[in-house]
């Protein structure tokens, strides 16, 4: 069953607004890094943060005490609904499903809540912070802002969770009682996440992210949100969402990726939006893509925007949709040594492009994909 993308919203380290961020990517812009420091050590990390200006106009009483992750999600979700021209009156609010894709969740408040317990004891735990630590807090805030009275789901996973959320939307829209699904992926940064990924040897100390490099020097974390409104009809469609699978060992990821590419019809597509981020993911995707059609362009925006984990899948879908709409691909930044993939190294016209695949290989064992098309 294909679903139409009726509207999109985007909050990124390059600012907010789909058209604005897309223009910057086409111009080869790269987000600026900010340095954040550990609370207990002397280490610091380079990250891509959402500029404060990007959240202008999203103030709402419900978000007064909410963490950054909820504010990013609200901004992206509201932009997507505006773009789709969906007005949520009581009837539509019941027939609209909200699906959130989350990976690390509200880590800032979670850490703060637990820090008080560790340092001061259980009696100092804040009843105001605790509800914000729950994975579905961002979804509940947006549901309240929109007045959604039907189904709200929060899916948790790794970088593939955004595509799994779209797969869930595809399944839910089989029910004719549902008119729209608003799918939102969101993530916030904290030094604790940087430390965790560093200990896992997936983080790079400073930019750039060098995609498809043999050295796998690591990624830079980022934050923000992406949102899409899915409807039944429209010129831009998600033809098929593939739930992929999981890998027990990293070396197994390539086989799942190959299966996804085969099932999604790699030979008929014009370009692939990859999740390459400077880690083991790049090699897995490179090997899978090379085994299929080597003529398709392969694009990754992670050198420009960073690795936003829970938001990443939605960002990739927005990128693919924008590339199909505008018939252009932005340059892949910092792709050093020649690789045997067809990377657009400068702004590249793709006139007549009709189909794209989005691949998402997560860092914690999950892999998924989907295929987009434009009429």
């Amino acid at each position: 069953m294909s679903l139409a993308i009726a509207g999109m919203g985007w909050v990124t380290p390059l600012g907010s607004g789909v058209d604005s961020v897309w223009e910057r990517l086409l111009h080869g812009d790269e987000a600026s890094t900010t340095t954040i420091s550990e609370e207990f050590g002397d280490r610091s990390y380079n990250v891509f943060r959402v500029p404060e200006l990007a959240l202008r106009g999203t103030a709402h009483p419900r978000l007064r005490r909410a963490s950054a992750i909820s504010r990013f999600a609200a901004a992206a979700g509201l932009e997507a609904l505006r773009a789709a021209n969906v007005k949520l009156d009581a009837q539509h609010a019941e027939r609209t499903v909200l699906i959130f894709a989350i990976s690390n969740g509200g880590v800032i408040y979670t850490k703060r809540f637990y820090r008080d317990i560790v340092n001061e004891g259980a009696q100092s735990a804040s009843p105001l912070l605790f509800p914000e630590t729950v994975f579905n807090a961002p979804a509940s805030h947006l549901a309240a802002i929109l007045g959604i009275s039907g189904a709200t789901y929060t899916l948790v996973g790794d970088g593939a969770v955004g595509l799994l959320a779209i797969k869930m939307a595809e399944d839910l829209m089989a029910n004719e009682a549902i008119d729209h699904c608003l799918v939102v992926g969101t993530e916030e940064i904290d030094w604790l996440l940087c430390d965790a990924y560093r200990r896992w040897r997936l983080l790079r100390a400073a930019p750039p992210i060098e995609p498809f490099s043999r050295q796998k020097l690591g990624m830079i974390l980022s934050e923000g949100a992406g949102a899409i409104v899915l409807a039944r009809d429209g010129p831009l469609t998600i033809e098929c969402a593939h739930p992929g699978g999981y890998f027990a060992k990293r070396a197994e990821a390539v086989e799942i990726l190959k299966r996804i590419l085969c099932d999604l019809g790699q030979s008929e597509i014009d370009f692939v939006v990859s999740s390459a981020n400077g880690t083991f993911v790049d090699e897995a995707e490179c090997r899978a893509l090379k085994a299929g059609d080597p003529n398709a362009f392969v694009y990754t925006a992670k050198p420009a925007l960073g690795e936003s984990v829970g938001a990443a899948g939605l960002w990739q879908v927005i990128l693919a949709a924008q590339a199909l709409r505008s018939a252009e691909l932005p340059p892949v930044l910092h792709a050093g040594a020649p690789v045997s993939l067809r990377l657009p190294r400068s702004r590249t016209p793709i006139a007549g492009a009709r189909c794209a695949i989005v691949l998402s290989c997560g860092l914690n064992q999950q892999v998924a994909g989907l295929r987009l098309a434009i009429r």
Partner: protein
Amino acid sequence: MAQSSNPNGKKISVRVAVVAAGVVSPLGVGLAETVDSLYKARDCVTPVTRFSVSQCRCKTGGQIPDDRLLAGQNEGRRSHRLHRASHMMIQALKEVLTQEPQFEPELTIIGTTSGGMSYGEHYYRSICQAGDLRHAPTWIANYPAQKPVIDAQEAFGISAPCQIIANACASGTNAIGHAFECVRSGRYQRVLAGGYDALSEMVFVGFDSLQASTPEKCRPFDRHRTGMVLGEAAAILALENLESAQQRRAPVLAEIIGYGISTDNFHITQPDPSGIGPRQAMERALQSGGISAAEVDYINAHGTATVFNDAAEGKAISAVFNGVPVSSTKSMMGHSLGAAGAVEAVFCLLALQHQFLPSNINFTASDDDLDLNIVGNETRPAVLRTALSNSFGFGGTNASILMRSFKE
């Protein structure tokens, strides 16, 4: 009944069978121990031993003994590193596959609220207190919410993609409900669905900070109720297109016949006092199942025993139903959060199979404001055909599923 289309656009609505179930909870490991505990209305809430609760109001919880959890599991190094939640999921899935070794799911949908939270606690505490971080990579790798599900699947060679639903305390029921809809739409033949959560200090202290948990006994719907106690559990149901199950002669334990979900936007931690959210979820489940309220023989309530939650749910139940027997089995084992809906679905399954009403223990007196037929303190034999299970969570998520004894 909601109409769905299969991938070819054809309108269909298939029946959904439960062909196997697995459970591990404070009531026991496996269905046999669980039904025995339910029959005996055992109080399985004990003093918390997993972490210090000296500064908490509440000092009890429903815990699974380590020796029971690890019995029969691989003693290898890898197994030793797995989170407690992974061991719980492995036990539950093992029981499912013991009943149905040929069950090959196309999708696995599991609810949880906190994943491998205690490993996150170890990690942060070690950083905070300059402690030993040698095990940090293991803690970090085993912290994500999908990991226990993947571990369980990997243990038994199942390769299905996993969707992890984190809709707070409604997660388990949402997982089963969504799995039901996936099968009923004809898009999937076989789906595993369930939930898990292991006790963790942060969540325990969190509910304590909200004064939602009680220093006393957990007394759902009681006039003197003072709050909840937490628990831990994992449960999995194997759902299959009924026709497919019958073709391969799989035993049909029961059917899922309806699912309702609603969101009330009253407050992030409190239900709308009118009970509108739970009421909509129950009404939508009835509508989805195409049955009337009078056809429901038993309600396994969310029944956390907090003043506000029970009041809202009680109001909603009495508005929709007329005198149906109600119990909250959380009185026996505590609230297992993301697992609760899945565990309570298994309890409904056992009640239908064995024809009894599970008990709402620690019940002392009816609440004058609630017009409910509570199954107080003792299990009752009953003729049951249809059971409803409720789960409601933070963020205003409400979910109900309907289960029915199987008849051709």
